[in-house]
């Protein structure tokens, strides 16, 4: 069975290491915060100006002045810090953020990513995504393996306007876990019940299967 969104987030959470500063994008990446492993302390960065993002507030405690980059109401934690947008992207640009998790429309087998624009259709803008992908040391993409038409989102070359060039390090989809390598997508894990043949059929970019490929565990 292909993973659901919660399971994709749960698998990505296993990549978190104690002491990491992490920026989670909108959508599936936001869910990663729900699965931070026991004993692993990470600090979540929200690029609108907060380090130490806490959970959603209890009903009635929402504060319009305290939101995350997805404009959701949030809370702070002991040790949180506020700052302005220039400093926020300063720390991102300077490589202080250890891991960025974001969604994508397309990823190419060289690590290119496209997630901000569909010419003639969608013109919402890139927000902070271009800054994040240009600077983050480690970028994991969380996305569905195929688009609603069933076409592969893991491509030899992105067809949509790029957000960043050769920057993605790892992709976690509903079908498996893939490192970006010189040889293209390297399949490290497959989702429980998903066959390697299905992954091969649904991956348009260059694909190699790791010798020790294994079934994903949570």
């Amino acid at each position, binding site marked *: 069975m292909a993973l659901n969104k919660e399971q994709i987030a749960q698998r990505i959470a296993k990549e978190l290491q104690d002491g990491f500063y992490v920026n989670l994008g909108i959508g599936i990446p936001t869910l990663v915060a729900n699965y931070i492993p026991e004993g692993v302390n990470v600090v979540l960065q*929200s*690029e*609108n*100006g*907060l380090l130490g993002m806490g*959970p*959603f*507030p*209890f*009903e*009635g*405690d*929402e*504060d*319009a*002045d*305290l*939101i*995350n*980059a*997805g*404009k*959701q*109401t*949030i809370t*702070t934690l002991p040790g949180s810090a*506020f*700052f*302005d*947008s*220039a400093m*926020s*992207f*300063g720390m*991102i*640009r300077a490589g202080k953020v250890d891991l960025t998790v974001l969604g994508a429309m397309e990823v190419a087998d060289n690590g290119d990513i496209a997630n901000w624009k569909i010419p003639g259709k969608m*013109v*919402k*803008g*890139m*927000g*902070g*995504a*271009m*800054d994040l992908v*240009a*600077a983050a040391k480690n970028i994991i993409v969380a996305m569905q393996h195929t688009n609603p038409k069933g076409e592969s989102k893991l491509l030899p070359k992105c067809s949509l*306007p*790029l*957000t*960043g*060039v050769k920057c993605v390090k790892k992709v976690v989809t509903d079908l498996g876990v893939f490192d970006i390598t010189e040889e293209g997508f390297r399949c490290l894990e497959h989702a429980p019940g998903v066959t390697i043949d299905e992954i091969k059929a649904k991956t348009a970019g260059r694909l190699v299967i790791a010798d020790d490929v294994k079934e994903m565990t949570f």
Partner: protein
Amino acid sequence: MNKVVANADEAIKGIESGMTLMLGGFGLCGIPENCIAALVRKGVNNLTCISNNAGVDDFGIGLMLQQKQVKKMISSYVGENAEFERQLLSGELEVELIPQGTLATRCMASGYGMPAVYLLAGVGTEVAIGKEVRNFNGKDYLLEYAFDSDFAIVKAWKGDAQGNLVFKDTARNFNPMMAMAGKITIAEVEELVPVGELHPNEIHTPGIYVHRIFQGTDYEKRIEQRTTRKKN
């Protein structure tokens, strides 16, 4: 020195059609609600607005879009606004989308007196088209120019007659750097306190950057995505 003005209508005196304005805020968080309402009342048009977002259909800069007062938006993200999208696709509105960190830093550069900066975001993408590229330590960077604006309009939590400002929580966002980047900077505050009440240690924006200040009224502080959890 008296920077205090009575209200938003007085604060925006001198803003004319065709000018370039910076407006602080992230989404609807920390936006200058009173001045936006005053700009709608004044009816100035052909404005170029530099702001991270364009509000929603019926709030924030969306109110100015409804009245067709904006000629061009310079933003990083303009979702959540159907009227914006309609005007854009019909060609009534120009838009320049730029990466969020680049937007913040171009404002900051202006306030620090730097004409331009080299930034990473957008290298190898369509954002880089027409921009000077320079390699430092093996990495390519884009030359990005400081932003100029005729007026910067920001929203703070507290301020005093000297123009000193303190922001609250994530409502700080773009406000401090836009405050630094206006030829004339207008600050609307929730609370105008007597000079001396703000401790010098706590001031986020020193008053030298602020030319006009007033205490706003009737803040709606709309929430775009109200997300909560249940108590047990």
